[in-house]
């Protein structure tokens, strides 16, 4: 009987040793970019896209748009200002800004002008044209369209965590500000709440 125990012990030892070196395999599946992929609980592409879509849609439903169009008889000109990241994550604000810009442009309800970073590049190009391009193709300075409204906002998080369970609360605030009067014509808010649960032990 003792012999048998020793045999078992040896097997257990071997099993433990072999388990310790289990190989990890990588598998890749292609999914549609619309599929929600929540892997780590962090801010991801789905959040960025969903928030941009719904908030721009909401912003354009409010009366400021029609008020402006009826009084000035043209579409309002909008520029996207800074979106401040005051969250716990290194969110790529640029992709969110691009999402906003895309939604605004494609809505066809507003005229959308290039933001600060793009403008610099365009102005440099015009300056170079003034020196190097044929005269009849040169674009003159001072003909940019000034924006009527600026869209700006913040992404903030509130974090709560205990015993491996984490609640992440994202709050995205966007506002449309009249560049002439500083009046806020629209204020939008979108909240996302995620609960991330981690197991304490697995085999």
């Amino acid at each position, binding site marked *: 009987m*003792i*012999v*048998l*125990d*020793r*045999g*078992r*012990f*040896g097997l257990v*030892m*071997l099993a*433990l*040793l072999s*388990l*310790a070196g289990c190989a990890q395999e990588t598998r890749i599946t292609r999914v549609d970019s619309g599929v929600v992929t929540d892997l*780590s609980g962090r801010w991801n592409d789905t959040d960025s896209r969903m928030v941009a879509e719904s908030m721009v849609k909401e912003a354009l439903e409010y009366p400021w748009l029609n008020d402006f169009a009826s009084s000035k008889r043209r579409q309002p000109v909008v520029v996207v200002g800074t979106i*401040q*990241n*005051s*969250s*716990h*994550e*290194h969110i790529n604000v640029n992709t969110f800004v691009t999402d906003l810009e895309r939604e605004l442009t494609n809505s066809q309800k507003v005229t959308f002008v290039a933001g600060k970073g793009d403008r610099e590049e365009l102005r440099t190009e015009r300056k170079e044209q003034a020196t190097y391009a044929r005269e009849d193709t040169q674009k003159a300075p001072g003909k940019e369209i000034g924006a009527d409204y600026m869209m700006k906002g913040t992404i903030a*998080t509130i*974090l709560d*965590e*205990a015993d*491996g369970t984490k609640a992440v609360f994202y709050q995205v605030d966007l506002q449309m500000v009249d560049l002439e009067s500083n009046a806020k014509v629209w204020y939008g808010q979108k909240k996302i709440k995620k609960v991330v649960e*981690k*197991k*304490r*032990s*697995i*085999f």
Partner: protein
Amino acid sequence: MSPIAPRPTALVSARWGFFISANFLFAVLALLLLAGCGSSVNRYQLIDASLRAYDPKGADAIVQRDEKEYGEKSLVLYGMDRGMTLQLAGEYQQSNAVLEQAEEELDRLYTRRIRTETLAFMTNDTALPYEGDPYEQVLINVLKALNYTMLGQWEDALVEARRIDHRLNVLSDRTNEKDAYREDGFARYLSGILYEITGDLNDAFIAYRNAYETFEATRAWSHTPVPTQLPEDLLRTAEALHFTQELAEYRQAFPGRKWETSQSLQHLAQVVVISYNGRAPRKEDQFLDLPISLNALQLVLLNRGIVQSNRPSNRGVDTVLYGLNGHVVRVALPRLVPQKTQVHVDTLRLIPDNGMPVTLNTELVHNVTALADKALAERLPGITTKALARAATKFAFAEAATRGAQQAAGHDAGPWVGLLVGLLTKGFAVASEEADKRSWQTLPDEIHLARVWVPPGRYQVQSSVGGFPDSPDSLMPEAMRTLSLGPGEAAVLVQRVMP
């Protein structure tokens, strides 16, 4: 009945017994090889030598070369070690990338793997994944914040400040003991500085206040007094926010203290110097040989009388000796070896294009050795209990294996087989015992800080160690040696001072 049970004839079972012991020999050898990690000491000596020779890129190359040696159990440690060397080499983006990986791995390690824990219980704690002590985890975010400031990405530096806040909140929720490490004065102070630079005075004030309270509360064991500038920071931000009650309280707490108003500093530029001084403490094994019979006690005493130190060669002797005796269990516990720095003040000079040079003196804000000492003291009861339980289990296994082999070998060969198996298994129990000596060793012994407001302009940075202008310059990336600052702008400088 198991299908592998041998037939009850003496000859066959004797063979069987030998067969198992040969298998055991391989298993033991494999485990011994796994448990060995002698090169880590060597590695840190090489890194130190590179840093002394003002070659941070060389130090980083050593860490990178050893990536495989760190192994999958020390992914976090690799990220920590490399994050520091990359920062010193001026590769801030890469430093952030490896530190981010370490942080993500840390997140995953919350879930413990039972099979890994079991393996560690059979051998030693070095088989467990390295998570680092809480103070080391906080320093991951501190280093990242500093990297972002040096890249000029202040918004991202603030993300790290918020993560520090969250990490410390979770830590203090988890730690019941009042006196334990649950807050971090330096991390809070640095967060406050970052918030103030970016114009968020309210968060800055809260961070300063937390820092002040932590420095006061942990003074007894952290050996770090409240930084001399912190009271002024508190007074300035409280005043700027019109917090009249807080301002009155702090005025009372720091009588006679003068401060520049937040408004008057707005037109100036700011320079923050972080100085990493010396080397973090290392850990070494401390063996306790516990005799469990009177004979064994004599053997231990006799052996200790002959050999004093715990050199590897002596450990080999112990392994055979105690394996033969069979009644000694060995427990290994980690022990901290401080490597204190000789530099108590670093002096930096900012030389403007025209005008008088500005002199900065750094002061201690973070005593890494004291924190490591505290962390080990907090964990030692747990480590000891586990080590004793492991020693008892190893002994029981060895005893069972010896008896089993003796029985199997039969009357004639029994004693010899028993002796052989006992030597192997009990020797293994002694030899495989090793304390977890891993720690973030590219950290400094102390972190110093200096902060000064200067008129906007161009400055040459000159650093001299220990206040002697003739001593060699400290380790500071080339790009940081000239500064060009506009009004309201800030620069963070990081340097490493080795002696």
